[in-house]
């Protein structure tokens, strides 16, 4: 692994390691969605050489979701529930947008992240790349966010030990869950209170805007 990648992994915390569980389908249906404007703001996810790596979260403006090429709608026009947050993850000089959805299952809050307006180069590589959802439990406080993302290694052990049956594909070592939302929710509900099902929690302090 290249030094730069190692540094980035440390900076971005466990969240950005390759061990977070990925899913083709979202954890939410529209009826599960909720809002909490406590999410809105700037959150620190790491620091390198005094430079902060951070998330900016804002409520998605569903009226002005255009801005795509030649006046076409961007991918944000897909999100019209008025319960979508736009997350911009700033890493050094590069930014990436994600759709963030907050939901509640059995009294536990989760967030679901999905990349939006993805640009990958080179173009031939971009043909092959499939965007996926990641999700985890979230605690929202005035001055910090705490996230607990589902852990891929725990999932692999469950599969190997025949403890769960859930549709998934091994993409050269990366597990992709292909089960639909209702099955995902059953999985989340079953393991919500088992700490080993999650990666080490990440604490993101609030930054001044």
């Amino acid at each position: 692994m290249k030094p730069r990648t190692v540094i980035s992994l440390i900076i971005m915390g466990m969240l950005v390691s390759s061990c977070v569980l990925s899913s083709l389908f979202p954890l939410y249906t529209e009826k599960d969605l909720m809002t909490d404007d406590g999410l809105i703001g700037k959150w620190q996810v790491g620091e390198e050489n005094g430079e902060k790596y951070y998330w900016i979260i804002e409520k998605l403006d569903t009226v002005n979701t255009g801005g795509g090429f030649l006046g076409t709608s961007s991918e944000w026009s897909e999100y019209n529930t008025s319960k979508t947050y736009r997350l911009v993850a700033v890493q050094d000089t590069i930014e990436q947008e994600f759709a963030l959805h907050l939901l509640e299952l059995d009294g536990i809050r989760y967030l679901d992240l999905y990349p939006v307006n993805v640009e990958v180069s080179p173009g031939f590589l971009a043909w092959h790349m499939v965007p996926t959802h990641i999700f985890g439990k979230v605690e929202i406080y005035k001055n910090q966010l705490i996230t607990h993302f589902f852990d891929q290694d725990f999932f692999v052990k469950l599969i190997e030990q025949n403890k769960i049956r859930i549709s998934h594909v091994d993409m050269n070592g990366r597990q992709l869950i292909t089960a639909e939302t209702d099955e995902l929710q059953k999985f989340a509900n079953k393991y919500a209170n088992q700490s080993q099902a999650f990666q080490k929690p990440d604490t993101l302090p609030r930054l001044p805007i």
Partner: protein
Amino acid sequence: MKTRLILTMLIIIIMVVSCIPSLYPLYRDKDLLFDTRLLGLFNTEGNMIGDIGGDTWEFEKLDWQAENKSGSDWDKFRSGKTYKLIALEDGKNAEFAVHLIKLGKNFYLDFFPVKYNIEHVMLDMQLIPAHIFGKIEFVDNNIVMNWFDGEFLTNLIDSNKVKISHKMLENSILLTANTEELQKFVRKYGDNTRAFLNQDPDTMYRNKIPKI
């Protein structure tokens, strides 16, 4: 400049809309072939060695044991009939596992990214690599790639002319069908010119050795 930029963006948009990624490969190990005509360096411009312009593809036979010494990325490709492709585009390298098979009277290549760099770490985590496949023709010393057209497939699905497991993504269709289903589709439409992108197929020219 502005026109060139717009054209480039249009081409990118067409490429994104038209390609068909697949979760499963088009091949089973027992289908695999190895053809030495694929080995070597190819480029998009037909240039001489030492004067390479445009993009290049370099195919070599995968030595997974040697690759394992520097990591385990290639560990799952032990068929003995895997090509390692190093694709250079816009000054950036990416490595792909490539497999050759024959279905009906046509040859096909399956591409899967193995080593690549996506700078944004969080984005990298949320992009999963998938298979892409296309029909290959060996013409003279060159190779010609014909890519399946996502729009053609979408129309077939919308008009109930074909049933194949898939998921619609924002800009493309993702095939979730297993290998058997994929091969059935490819056998059925492999000779239908409309099933492939409605543009010139991609020709990759074998690098010529300059005369001394």
